[in-house]
């Protein structure tokens, strides 16, 4: 009797490993970290995780098709840099033009992946270097100060002190969730991820779906770049989004996505992002060095992904 309940609990933990880990981290923090249970901590987590969340949502989609998009960090930088440079010309059109540039590059990624069947990892690796360079070219390598509605929006609070970043995060997550679960496009994404050849043989428009997915990823990254630049009130083409793809991929993996493709798991991605951010906040609030947080992240990624593997096998 006792062993049965124990194994039930274990199964429950395995099924929701990310959620359980989040609860564990929160409980640990309530005990260990002074002033953890406050709205300012909560908003801090929300604000800091918003950019990674947007990027991770895009990566959730590309991973679901069996691909990957490493250009996201460079896309953030390019959008921010172009916006900062174009704002003196036309403050309203600047972010629109910048996002269009990101969309165009995303479309290029998608077309090359679907038409030439180039491995997304390698293609976006080179794209990442090139787009980072383009972002630097746009501002001539300088950090351009930013002002105007992007900065105002980043600092804006909804009634009740809710940060604007939460609004954007919720909107983006809801939109991606809707696309994945309620549209034909979402079904196509999953079908391509399960088996690209079967999808193609069944007559699915893979050559249209993949560009759409990489455009969505580029767009989400672009919005993340604008939010980041708004929050910092500056566009830094070299440092914005640097290595953010690693955190985003880690979050997607912790969230339970199959990296070889298949059903996108939006809820899992959100939990993964929150877990990684909570760990950062916990170590930060306790003055534990950044190096330690890196090492801890490694263990958590390996542990979470391993638990999912065990579950999938059983």
């Amino acid at each position, binding site marked *: 009797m006792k062993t049965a309940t124990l194994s039930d609990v274990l199964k429950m933990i395995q099924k929701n490993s990310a959620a359980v880990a989040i609860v564990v981290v929160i409980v640990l923090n309530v005990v260990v970290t002074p002033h953890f249970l406050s709205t300012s901590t909560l908003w801090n987590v929300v604000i800091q995780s918003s950019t990674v969340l947007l990027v991770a949502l895009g990566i959730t989609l590309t991973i679901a098709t069996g691909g*990957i998009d490493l250009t996201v960090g460079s896309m953030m930088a390019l959008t921010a840099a172009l916006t900062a440079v174009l704002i003196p010309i036309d403050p309203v059109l600047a972010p629109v033009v910048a996002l269009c540039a990101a969309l165009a590059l995303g479309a290029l990624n998608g077309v*090359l992946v679907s038409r*030439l*069947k*180039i*491995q997304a*990892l*390698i*293609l976006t*690796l*080179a*794209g*990442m*270097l*090139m*787009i*980072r*360079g*383009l972002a*630097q*070219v746009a501002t*001539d*390598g300088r950090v351009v100060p930013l002002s105007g509605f992007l900065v105002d929006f980043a600092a804006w609070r909804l009634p009740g002190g809710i940060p604007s970043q939460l609004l954007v995060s919720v909107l983006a997550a809801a939109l991606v969730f809707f696309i994945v679960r309620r549209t034909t496009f979402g079904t196509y994404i999953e079908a391509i991820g*399960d*088996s690209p050849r079967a999808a193609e043989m069944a007559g699915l428009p893979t050559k249209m779906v993949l560009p759409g997915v990489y455009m969505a990823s580029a767009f989400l990254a672009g919005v993340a770049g604008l939010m980041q630049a708004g929050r910092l009130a500056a566009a830094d*083409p070299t440092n914005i989004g640097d290595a953010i793809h*690693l955190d985003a*991929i*880690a979050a997607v*993996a912790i969230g339970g996505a*199959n*990296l*070889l*493709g*298949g059903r996108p798991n939006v809820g899992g991605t959100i939990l993964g992002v929150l877990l990684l951010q909570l760990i950062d906040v916990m170590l930060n609030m306790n003055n534990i*060095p*950044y*190096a*330690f*947080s*890196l*090492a*801890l*992240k*490694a*263990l958590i*990624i*390996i542990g979470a*992904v*391993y638990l999912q*593997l065990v579950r*999938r096998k059983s």
Partner: protein
Amino acid sequence: MKHRIPLVLHWLGDNRAWVALFVVGALAAILFAPFLTPNNLLNVMRQASIIGLLAAGMTFVMITRGIDLSVGSILALSGVAYASFAHAGALVATLVALCVGAAAGFINAVIIVRLGLDPFVATIASMFGFRGIALLVTGETPVRIDSALTDAFFIGRSSIFGIPLPVVVLLLVFVVLSWCARYTRTGRSVYAVGGNEAGSQMMGLPIARAKTLVYVLSGTLAGLAGVLLASRLGSGQPTAGDTYDLTAIAAVVIGGTLLSGGVGRLSGTLAGVLLIAIIANAFNLQGQLNTWWQNALTGAILLALIVAQAAITQARARPSRRVNSLAAAPAPFSGMAAQLSTPKK
């Protein structure tokens, strides 16, 4: 008689990374007078040696369908180890650093082979982990090598017959590993595992051993690269090699190794490494473009090379899958491959 021209074309196609290298090299020689001086060429080779060692390990990892993103962090960790043990003599320090690299590679292998994690996620995690350890043990500051310890600088700074020692090390590693890949049973099973894992398993090949071996090799070579870098810089930097993994992967892919496993040659990788080094060198020799344009153009050139390489590989693979001369081992399984193609996890 009819075969003659296509045979030449085939040979050129098999060595297209080298063809690209000579084309780019010739362009650089025409455009920039100082390019073809022995000094400059040796400089290019010396700069290529660090990435070259990482790329050599990465080639075998990618032949088994894996990837190792942690090599930059392992390089930093072993560089720190080398600098910390330099007082015990260069040989001891080198051995310690190589052991650190091998141990790190073994940890990767355990996570990937035993726990069954996807190599991509596993090595992202270990990249964080090894970097974290390197920063923790050094307190986030570089470890200086005492300048009185002249033997510690030997491997990174001295030359034999005018050839920088790092270049000699690089060439030795490539020659030995090429031989191992071609003529040893282990080398062949590495290709077989990447070409068709299920088939290899049915043939009784030691899959787990081959996979473990490639990650340990990759870690050890990253350790050697860490030694060279620390010895040249005179310090072990915990932040070194931050994006070297990506450059190494780019070099391997330009060299013709496929991410889908089973296909790849070290000679191609060497051409890829030198190609990237020559592009960087050419940008150094010209005096017009600023760093930002150089970054963008380097990315664009890599993108073009990768797209071309992938397009050619796809086109050649389609009509009849020619068996790569080095991938001779998996050939007997190719019929089985159709029946046994591994279902997705």
